[in-house]
């Protein structure tokens, strides 16, 4: 009977450890965007976005006939950093207030000046200003879509509809607290195992170690399934800008998942060895 109760508690401990792992990874994705200044932007992301911006401007230059290099020089690290900060605040507004944030903008005055002085605009001096404004708007749209590739109107409507059914802000806050709740639950189950069949205490280590090993195994399977699901190709097909952001996010999440799996597996090995010592 004691053994049955202990195994049932070990099963519950496995479940709470899996919940802890999944929620901790989810928290790591959401939490940075919850701050007042949004999530910090990595330099490598800015570098990759700069390359992408270069490609986009080159395509527009081919289409509208302007010289690409002076325009590429204007869309520098500072502009991209600022746009990424604005995008981060946009996400922050979605998560904290349940509403889409302000549209992204960057000052295109300098860009318009450069375009106005471009030989393509000077071919027809009367329409140079109109040409510069129209092309600058196209470039602005393309760069903003690269940094925040979301249909903002669709998002606003979706959030409005979702708000009628669920309190998104409360759900997010609840989710952020979940890892610690799951961890506390795990500690409780481990304690209950020790109470149920923990004489001597090394016996309890057998159940706790098994639960840790099982949780590590299940988390590794979940991560493998996620990687095999083929979400990256879908995003790659939809937007190159989002692909960069998604890859940087997934890299961090996978590292954390691997860390949790390693810690749980190490805990499993130590606990099982300790529990075996007595038997030998």
């Amino acid at each position, binding site marked *: 009977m004691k053994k049955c109760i202990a195994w049932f508690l070990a099963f519950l401990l496995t479940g709470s450890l899996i919940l802890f792992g999944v929620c901790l990874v989810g928290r790591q994705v959401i939490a940075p965007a919850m701050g007042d200044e949004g999530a910090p932007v990595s330099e490598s992301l800015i570098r990759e976005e700069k390359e992408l911006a270069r490609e986009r401007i080159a395509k527009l230059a081919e289409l509208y006939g302007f010289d690409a290099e002076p325009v590429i020089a204007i869309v520098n690290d500072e502009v991209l950093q600022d746009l990424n900060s604005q995008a981060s605040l946009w996400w922050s507004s979605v998560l904290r207030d349940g509403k889409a944030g302000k549209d992204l903008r960057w000052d295109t005055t300098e860009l318009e000046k450069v375009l106005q002085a471009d030989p393509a605009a000077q071919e027809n001096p009367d329409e140079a200003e109109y040409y510069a404004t129209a092309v600058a708007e196209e470039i602005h749209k393309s760069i903003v*879509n690269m940094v925040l590739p979301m249909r903002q109107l*669709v998002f606003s409507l979706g959030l409005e509809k979702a708000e009628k059914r669920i309190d998104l802000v409360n759900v997010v806050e609840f989710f952020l607290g979940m890892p610690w709740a799951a961890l506390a639950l795990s500690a409780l189950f481990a304690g209950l195992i020790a109470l149920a069949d923990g004489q001597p205490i090394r016996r309890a280590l057998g159940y706790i170690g098994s639960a840790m*090993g099982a949780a590590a195994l*299940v988390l590794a399977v979940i991560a493998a399934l996620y990687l095999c699901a083929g979400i990256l190709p879908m995003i790659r097909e939809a937007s190159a800008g989002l692909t960069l952001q998604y890859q940087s996010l997934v890299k961090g999440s996978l590292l954390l998942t691997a860390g949790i799996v390693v810690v749980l597996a190490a805990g499993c090995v130590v606990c*099982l060895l300790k529990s075996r010592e007595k*038997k030998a």
Partner: protein
Amino acid sequence: MNTEHKSRGKKIWLQPLWLALPFLAVIAFAALRFGPTILRVISVLIKGAVVS
């Protein structure tokens, strides 16, 4: 006696696997039953919400 200890020692390493089996079974069932639908929904959401 020694053989019994050895077999116990081996068995102990299978315990995590037995404990993980119910969870793995639920995950496998969910992946096979709902996986394609979930992926289709994600694909539609990405296409609808993302601008290239």
